[in-house]
């Protein structure tokens, strides 16, 4: 079926080329049938790429090793659950996933705007097809997912064990959905500038897509952090890895846009700023993809294909140059319709929030790209590590959280001091009480963490106050019971209260980040069975070793041949609180020496074990030593005497010997407070985002619109 996949790619490229031409001809000549034909090219593209993706999925699930990408990233021993996700673990498959998702989201956007924004949508169609065509051309000329080898290998190399983790099934599609959704506002922004229609209508058309991009990107980032924490053996959730940063940057500018967008909607202000944010977010999304695919990074995320760098640089340069030209040449049309009425208003808080978010993005951009620029110019890659990022991002994050509490309680246009006093009393008191409580219980002197807790208390109080007053107002108006009033309030003001819930989640998330990074206790040491160590307030005892031969008995179901680990008992003040069982999986590798060595010669992968709770996580990882003379002798004898089909016998002997004479093992133990709050905060953000983005049922929307029109017409007539 590889031939069908290749034909799909060629046809898809032809459709893109024709669609770009038809759309541009249609909009320039006023012949809308050509614009319509261009739009249908996007629908057709979605269909073609769906077939192509299905062909590749079938190849993975059916172990068709004639496909080079299947042979290099899957195997018969890879569990079926992960074979389905292995499609996007390769350079070629992930490019196909990118193009496929782009075609689906583009189709949705163009379908929803099919009766409006004729000129803008036609230009947007050509931009979207251009981007899709670029990715398809990359696949055809550089990284073809349908390239084959005959005769087919009998077995594949297998999926990287690090990727055999449930969130890896959804982390990449979420991130790619976020990236590709970022290109929808980008395309419509370019279309609006080209068509010289930069007023309210195009903003309205892309608002929901910008929000969806923000939501998907956020979920993808959080799933990646969770994977890093629960799967990788280093014990952290954010390492300022260049690829993590690449996904965070468009999320930050997207967040800024979602706030400043409201100012343009309500006041006709910040048009240059908003269009610039849209273009920057889309370009940063492409740059994020470039970082992963170009091969310039040495990261766990990087695919290492150096051939894709130049085409990406050309496209990014064109996007940046074209964006600057369009904004500068249309600056007269982008003038603000109003000015700020007062510095004490929600508009000015949103502008401050935008400045902080863009400053954060700039810091991360510099920290991410400076080593690359330095390497390109001097041949020496400058090192920019977590301390450098923390120095700038921590204070900015504090200001950001504080602003997320101020924004909801201050009104649009002009707030007065009397109202500000009334609205800020409770939040300020909450922050002060938190500060006093922290000082009273003798929290160690970590000023940034304490400041973050106080800011978070301020946010929680301001949001709580908003809900309380909203429910009271609703009860007074409609005479509803409190729970019903709460539901009605949120249902009738989804964007406002969904946004408040997002702010609440962000505050909770940052409390988790501040607590876990400031008050963490960690220990890396070697222990033999029976020995103990202290980590913070906990005592950890190495009870006994464990060894299992897989795949049947693999606790993590990751397909490792051999898993060696330990049982750890955790005590606090003499009481047993948890039992942990960290392990390390040893995987088969093609090309490793000997029949036994090849069964365990792959990259060993740590399987973390932790006891997670609302107040603290106890996290553990183990690196067992299999390089002892006794164990090495078993492998050596097995290699000499056993054929491949019996080699597992030696692995059994090795496991038994390890249990009988366990060598000292290296442990990494961490006690972190409030890590759970990070994931909980993420869930709250996700829930709030869903509420804000969820469309009102059409019947309700129509009824509300009619009622609003009638009421407003009546009211306006009185005015």
């Amino acid at each position: 079926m590889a031939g069908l996949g290749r034909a799909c790619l060629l046809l898809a490229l032809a459709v893109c080329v024709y669609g770009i031409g038809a759309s541009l001809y249609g909009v320039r000549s006023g012949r809308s049938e050509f614009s319509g034909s261009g739009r249908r090219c996007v629908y057709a593209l979605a269909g073609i790429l769906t077939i192509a993706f299905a062909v590749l999925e079938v190849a993975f699930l059916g172990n068709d090793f004639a496909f080079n990408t299947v042979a290099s990233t899957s195997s018969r021993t890879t569990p079926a659950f992960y074979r389905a996700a292995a499609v996007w673990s390769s350079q070629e498959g992930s490019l196909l996933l990118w193009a496929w998702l782009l075609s689906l989201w583009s189709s949705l956007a163009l379908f929803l705007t099919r009766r409006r924004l004729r000129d803008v949508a036609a230009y947007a169609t050509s931009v979207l097809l251009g981007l899709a065509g670029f990715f398809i051309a990359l696949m055809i000329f550089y990284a073809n997912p349908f390239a084959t080898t005959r005769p087919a290998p009998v077995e594949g190399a297998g999926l990287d064990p690090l990727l055999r983790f449930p969130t890896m099934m959804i982390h990449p599609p979420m991130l790619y959905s976020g990236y590709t959704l970022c290109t929808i506002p980008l395309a419509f922004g370019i279309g609006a500038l080209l068509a010289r229609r930069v007023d309210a209508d195009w903003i309205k058309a892309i608002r929901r897509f910008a929000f969806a991009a923000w939501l998907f990107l956020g979920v993808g980032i959080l799933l990646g952090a969770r994977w890093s924490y629960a799967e990788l053996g280093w014990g952290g959730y954010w390492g300022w890895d260049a690829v993590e940063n690449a996904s965070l940057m468009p999320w930050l500018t997207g967040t800024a846009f979602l706030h400043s967008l409201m100012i343009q909607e309500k006041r006709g202000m910040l048009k240059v700023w908003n269009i610039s944010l849209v273009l920057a977010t889309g370009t940063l999304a492409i740059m994020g993809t470039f970082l992963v695919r170009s091969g310039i990074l040495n990261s766990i995320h990087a695919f290492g294909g150096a051939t894709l760098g130049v085409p990406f640089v050309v496209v990014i340069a064109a996007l940046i140059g074209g964006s600057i030209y369009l904004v500068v040449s249309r600056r007269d049309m982008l003038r603000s319709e109003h000015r700020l009425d007062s510095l004490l208003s929600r508009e000015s808080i949103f502008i401050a929030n935008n400045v902080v978010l863009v400053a954060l993005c700039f810091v991360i951009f510099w920290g991410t790209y400076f080593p690359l620029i330095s390497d390109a110019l001097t041949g020496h890659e400058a090192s920019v590590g977590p301390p450098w990022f923390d120095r700038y991002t921590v204070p900015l994050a504090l200001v950001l959280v504080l602003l997320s509490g101020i924004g909801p309680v201050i009104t649009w246009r002009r707030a007065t001091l009397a109202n500000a006093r009334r609205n800020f009393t409770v939040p300020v008191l909450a922050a002060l009480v938190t500060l006093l409580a922290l000082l009273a219980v003798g929290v160690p002197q970590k000023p940034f963490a304490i400041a973050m807790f106080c800011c978070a208390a301020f946010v929680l109080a301001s949001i709580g106050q908003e809900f309380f007053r909203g429910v009271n107002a609703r009860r007074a108006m409609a005479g509803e019971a409190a729970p019903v009033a709460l539901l009605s309030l949120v249902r009738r003001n989804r964007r406002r209260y969904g946004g408040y819930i997002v702010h609440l989640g962000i505050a909770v998330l940052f409390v988790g980040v501040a607590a876990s990074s400031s008050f963490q206790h960690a220990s890396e040491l070697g222990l033999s069975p029976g020995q103990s160590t202290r980590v913070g307030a906990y005592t950890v005892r190495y009870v006994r070793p464990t060894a299992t031969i897989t795949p049947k008995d693999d606790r993590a179901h990751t397909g490792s041949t051999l898993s060696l680990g330990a049982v750890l008992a955790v005590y606090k003040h003499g009481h047993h609180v948890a039992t942990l069982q960290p392990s390390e999986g040893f995987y088969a590798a093609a090309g490793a020496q000997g029949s036994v060595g090849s069964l365990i010669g792959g990259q060993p992968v740590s399987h973390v074990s932790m006891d997670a709770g609302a107040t603290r996580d106890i996290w553990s990882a183990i690196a067992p030593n299999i390089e002892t003379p006794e164990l090495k002798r078993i492998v050596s004898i097995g290699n000499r005497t056993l054929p491949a089909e019996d080699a597992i016998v030696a692995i059994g002997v090795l496991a038994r010997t390890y249990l009988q004479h366990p060598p000292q093992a290296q442990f990494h133990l961490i006690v972190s407070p409030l890590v759970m709050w990070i994931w909980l905060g993420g869930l709250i953000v996700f829930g709030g985002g869903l509420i804000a983005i969820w469309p009102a049922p059409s019947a309700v929307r129509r009824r509300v619109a009619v009622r609003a029109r009638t009421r407003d017409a009546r009211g306006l007539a009185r005015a």
Partner: protein
Amino acid sequence: MSILIAILTLALVAVVIFVVSAPLRSSRRRPDAGRAGGAGEDAARASGADDVALESPSGSALRGDLEAAREAKYREIRDAELDYRTGKLSREDYEAIDGALRAEAIEILNRLEADGEG
């Protein structure tokens, strides 16, 4: 196998051409459908052809923007009312802001009316 793939590919090409060329074919059947407005627009709407633009080149563009501005202004009026009811605005401030918003809304409605929508 290769014959089957060739047949599938040809079928796919045919379907794509059919889908992509539909607006061009329907425009050939209705020569005036491609031009916005008038009988062609009615015919396009009646035939359910989504891909033929249903907005006039300049007037509808302005109307679309004005309608979006009107909706945003209505939302702003409702937001101000909610701000007042939740105590973020005093009565005096609310009345001043509400009056200004309604005046802006009337201006948008007048412009819509002048554009022929009312």
